[in-house]
């Protein structure tokens, strides 16, 4: 049983504010991912929560008990590092049993736990092997076993897959999540990879400039994000600038350079300057037979992505629009130069207030 509560957590380096009054809670057995572009403060957050760094202000509670002033080694956490950081001078077995050993457990108890963990991570390595002889993926599995060996219910994963190959990364992320779920652990996972976060987490916190801008379930964050920044950070989107022309009970109409779209978003006023975001996956496309109204254009580019095909369509007003079609839904049926009609369901037309700093700046990733 482990819950986490963070209250007004602040960290300053001189003048620079790395964490700005961050507050959130993690439920027992919940898997929380924290994402954001480099420099958003996610690393500082996990370091302050785990005790590797000390925050400038605010409080942290594990199971309702304040831990801010506890030294790192007494917080009873498991921590998995991006650098993996297996002790290079110890073999695999000694690495995994290090936690039990420094806690003074009797040898047979440590050995039993280690055996179970080796089984759990399903890795056929010899216990006397040294970390340097293992592949990156195998090393990180040992890193996880080491973190779990002293029986902590709270696991911090600090970019655990960051140093691995793309393919290993996707395979391992599912394996790690299964282990965490099966053992009933509470987990905090930091990553810059939004797909990784979505595929494993119960909830995701998106950070920007030292604050959490949104915290929600993955599907909600992807399909209906509350802010323009998040709509771009969690996945590709087409952005169109426009204004609200008409608001009714259940829809609102927007216009963008002669293009008229309807959305289920209700909170906007008529005449408001807005930005529309449409995910390439939620657009349907068909070959044009008639003259084509508004949302039409021709295919300028086609990229084969494997299970999906990505098209770039030039709209009538010369804007570029991206569409992604699954291969199984006839994604390969189009060719470059085809005249097409596009359509989007109103619930997939996302609308945001026009940002003060301008769209480019608001969406900047680095």
């Amino acid at each position, binding site marked *: 049983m482990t819950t986490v509560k963070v209250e007004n957590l602040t960290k300053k380096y001189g003048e620079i504010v790395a964490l700005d009054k961050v507050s959130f809670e993690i439920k027992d057995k919940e898997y929380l991912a924290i994402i954001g572009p480099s420099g958003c403060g996610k690393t500082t957050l996990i370091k302050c929560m785990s005790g590797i760094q000390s925050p400038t202000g605010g409080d942290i509670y594990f199971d309702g008990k304040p831990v801010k002033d506890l030294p790192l080694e007494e917080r009873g956490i498991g921590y998995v590092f991006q650098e993996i950081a297996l002790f290079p001078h110890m073999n695999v077995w000694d690495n995994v049993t290090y936690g039990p050993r420094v806690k003074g457990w009797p040898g047979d108890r440590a050995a039993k736990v280690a055996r179970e963990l080796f089984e759990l991570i399903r890795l056929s390595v010899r216990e006397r092997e040294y970390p340097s002889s293992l592949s990156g993926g195998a090393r990180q599995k040992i890193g996880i076993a080491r973190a779990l060996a002293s029986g902590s219910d709270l696991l911090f994963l600090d970019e655990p897959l960051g140093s691995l190959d*793309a393919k290993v990364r996707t395979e391992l992320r599912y394996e790690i999540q299964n282990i965490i779920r099966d053992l009933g652990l509470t987990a905090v996972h930091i990553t810059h990879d939004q797909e990784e976060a979505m595929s*494993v987490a119960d909830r995701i916190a998106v950070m920007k400039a030292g604050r959490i801008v949104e915290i929600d379930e993955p599907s909600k964050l992807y399909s209906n994000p509350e802010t323009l920044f998040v709509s771009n950070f969690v996945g590709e989107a087409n952005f169109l600038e426009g204004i609200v022309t008409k608001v009714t009970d259940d829809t609102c109409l927007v216009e963008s350079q002669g293009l008229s779209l309807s959305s289920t978003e209700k909170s906007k006023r008529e005449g408001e300057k807005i930005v529309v975001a449409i995910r390439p996956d939620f657009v349907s496309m068909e070959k044009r037979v008639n003259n084509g109204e508004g949302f039409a254009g021709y295919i300028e580019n086609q990229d084969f*992505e494997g299970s999906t095909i990505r098209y770039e369509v030039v709209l009538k007003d010369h804007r570029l629009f991206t569409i992604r079609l699954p291969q199984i839904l006839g994604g390969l049926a189009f060719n470059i130069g085809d005249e097409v009609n596009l359509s989007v369901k109103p619930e997939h037309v996302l609308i945001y207030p026009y940002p003060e700093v301008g769209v480019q700046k608001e969406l900047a990733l*680095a």
Partner: protein
Amino acid sequence: MPEVRLSEVSKSFGRIEAIHHFDLEIKSGEYICVLGPTGSGKTTLLRLIAGLICPDDGKITFDGKLVNDLSPEERDIAYFPQQYALFPHLNVLENVAFGPKTRGVAYEEAKTQALKVLETVKLDQRANAFPRELSGGMQQRVALARALASGAKLLLLDEPLGALDARLRVELRYHIKSLVKSAGLTAIHVTHDQREAMIVADRIVVLRMGKVEQVGTPYHIYQSPATLFVANFVGETNFLEGTIKSVNSVGALVELQDGFRVKVQETSYLSGEEVVLAIRQELTSLMPVDYDGENAIQGEVKAVRFLGDSIRVEVILVNNLLISARIPISQVKIYPKVKDKVAISFKPADVFVFCTTARGLAKEIEVI
């Protein structure tokens, strides 16, 4: 514009054979991606072409001219190393102008050229900054500009997007390809990310342990993988082991472990042969538990994963195998729940059939 040809090229470091009898022909203006896991020899291959190391054996020619004995500065190539290796003592402009200057362009002229290239990567405003003052993304663009400004027609890119955040990496794939194409260069791009390779490449070379597994267009590699390794490394794939029970003119019947029988549209195997079936996860469909169409196997949902453009449903089959189905997000009406009873199914035409090898499936698809 150079045409690059490698024939029978080998290179060892001590006992480790990094590149083994490597053959490849690259047409002028082509964008080639060398795709493979860490340690497959990708970087070695690039350094061989750059002339930074010499092959033990074999020939490397540019436009038909043997370059084995040419030093890197005589090969007229542009090299983009991992981690960029920007010159820390030179500012952005001087970094980019380094190539033209050493090739004898006058100082002022070199600077003008450099500025022009910096404009194309939108960094002309930061010309006087030093590399350490720039963000990772900007440094990446400076390195690209430096390579482009050298005027070389052959561009060698070593994991050019590897050090960037995931989201930015996706953005820049398209950018890097259009830059290279509009400059009319021949490019060899090394990566371990199959999705990146699919987007940027005209042709992909899949490399494993110093040997070529397959060469072809992204479409070709994806739609007809030559080996089990490629089927696994490129795309997301389910594997099932079984034995051919019977073969006729339209296909074969395969018996899986625990007696399940599935149909495949493949006639080149003999009855009794042991095979591995590979099915793309997006071609594996999730059905109601009472579905009784072709190739349906019952099971229970183990996990449901949200991936943005799709969801991935992991199903434990009644014969205890784990199979995943990938459903496009636009097709998801109701989310399946863990422990739901379901069936999975796939079309006989969508199954790739491979021979079972002595090394076994796990070793065959292992990514090392």
